[in-house]
């Protein structure tokens, strides 16, 4: 029975982040965490393979102390077990550190026949964890996958590459990243949510992974993060009669030289 590992990130929901117009600083006070949207597609794809092939699914996440809150949501989406690394180092981790931590953990808990990631995380969207993990594990990477099959120990994936698609067939294990259009993640049912409470989770400590300090030191550090402030005219026409609004808009556009 194939053994699948699916990776996910517990991120702040960008819809809840406010930009303070005065100084472009970000206000996270109302922001809640969620499973990164792209990773929901990765999880769903693993579950669909499980349903069609009888695979077992482990999930893994590397995050700050808050990451423990994610376990129930994750398990209700179908995986059999979840490993988590809760460490403040995650808040400063770049792709180099994250891929190194996840690859080391996958090596300890594996081997896996297939490792699935989302195409990027919805917060930082660095789009490098899957291929970097593959490189660390000495496995082929198949990125931007829009359809995925397992056939007698082979992985057959169709990739979406901007101007073309191609089919990649791998003998043996691989790391793949999937694009959102690969599936539509289902909403967990009440039964699944209840079942999640009985599924196992296990903490992995970074210190037990045998990584060197250099492997845990980010190559990229953040200097500033500023909200994008839109500088637009924000002129709103809201008369009850739409004909008036349209006339005003057309006059304004005429002034701009548009029509």
């Amino acid at each position: 029975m194939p053994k699948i590992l699916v990776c996910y990130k517990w991120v702040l929901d960008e819809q809840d982040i406010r930009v303070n117009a005065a100084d472009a600083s970000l206000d996270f006070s109302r922001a809640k965490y969620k499973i990164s949207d792209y990773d929901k597609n990765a999880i769903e794809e693993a579950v669909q393979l499980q349903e069609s092939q009888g695979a077992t699914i482990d999930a893994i996440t590397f995050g700050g102390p808050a990451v423990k809150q994610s376990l129930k949501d994750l398990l209700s989406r179908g995986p059999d077990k979840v490993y988590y690394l809760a460490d403040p180092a995650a808040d400063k981790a770049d792709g180099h550190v994250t891929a190194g931590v996840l690859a080391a953990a996958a090596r300890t808990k594996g081997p896996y026949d297939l490792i699935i990631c989302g195409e990027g995380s919805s917060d930082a969207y660095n789009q490098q964890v899957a291929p970097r993990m593959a490189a660390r594990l000495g496995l082929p990477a198949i990125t931007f996958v829009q359809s995925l099959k397992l056939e007698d120990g082979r992985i057959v994936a169709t990739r979406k590459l901007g101007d073309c698609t191609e089919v990649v067939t791998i003998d043996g294990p691989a790391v793949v990243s999937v694009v959102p259009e690969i599936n539509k993640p289902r909403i967990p049912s009440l039964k699944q949510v209840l079942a999640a409470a009985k599924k196992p989770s296990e903490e992995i400590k970074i210190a037990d992974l045998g990584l060197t300090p250099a492997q845990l030191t980010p190559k990229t550090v953040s200097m500033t993060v500023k909200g994008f402030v839109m500088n637009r005219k924000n002129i709103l026409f809201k008369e009850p009669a739409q004909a008036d609004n349209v006339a005003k808009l057309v006059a304004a556009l005429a002034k701009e030289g548009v029509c």
Partner: protein
Amino acid sequence: MSGILIFSENNATALELLTAGLGLKATMNQPLCAVALAEEDAAALAAAGADKVILLKGRDWPEGYAQPIAELAAKDLAAVILIGGTARGKDIAAKVADGLDAGLVTEAQTIEIVDDKLQTTRLKYGGLAVASEATVLPAVVTVAPRTFDKATAAGGQGQIISLDTADGDPRVKVSDLCPIERQGVDIAAAARIVCVGRGLSQKEDLALAEDLAKALTAEIGCTRGIAEDYHWLPVERYIGISGQKVKPEVYLSLGVSGQVQHVAGIRDSKIIVAVDSNEKAPIFEAADYGIVGDLYEVAPLLTAAFKK
């Protein structure tokens, strides 16, 4: 640790990287080497200002060149490796970065060397924010297509060196390469855009937007839901951080709420106009002009007005 290396499997993008690379060369004062996979691309890069072009041969899958590129960069002691931010480029960049044990910045918008570090800016949180970051050298950076202008041929005399590489990974087989048929024009280049969102209740109502687009001589764009969930329009028409980035003279939306991931794709528009029934829709914060109203009432009136 010294030089600059650039690579894209897409030659138009490679010439844009050359512009960025030449900018870095001016501060770093180091040679600029380009990697190409086709003879004519190598010649174009050499003519447009690369000091040296390595023409790599021997593999039939661009991603298979990640390892030879990493080896070249290591041998050349490249300090900054710029790679075109196509899907293939991002795959290659991650493997090159790992081969060099280097940091990788994805889709940088600005690139500088300051105090022996690479300083970049890029979008974060779905386009809501801009992050400035510093990366130790050597560093790999991907740059999205059309971020920089193409370097123009300047009668450069760059040397071209052919290099055969060993076979690729025997575990990987690539087949069924299939071009995606573009349906209609490239909206990234459109001068005017009418964009429809989920405020539209059924596919047939696209006719409303099409009439308006005709009156305004505009192309039709859409939000992700219209393309990816409803499949009413082809995916290359959807605008946003994961879709097309557009920069028309006029962008006019009908029933688009203006979530950050969509707005990230329209920010370079000269004039933004929005029609939405919800006065609180975030699109109005991103717009120059807005009409609060039912698009089914407003769109035909606009069409009639523009026809005049």
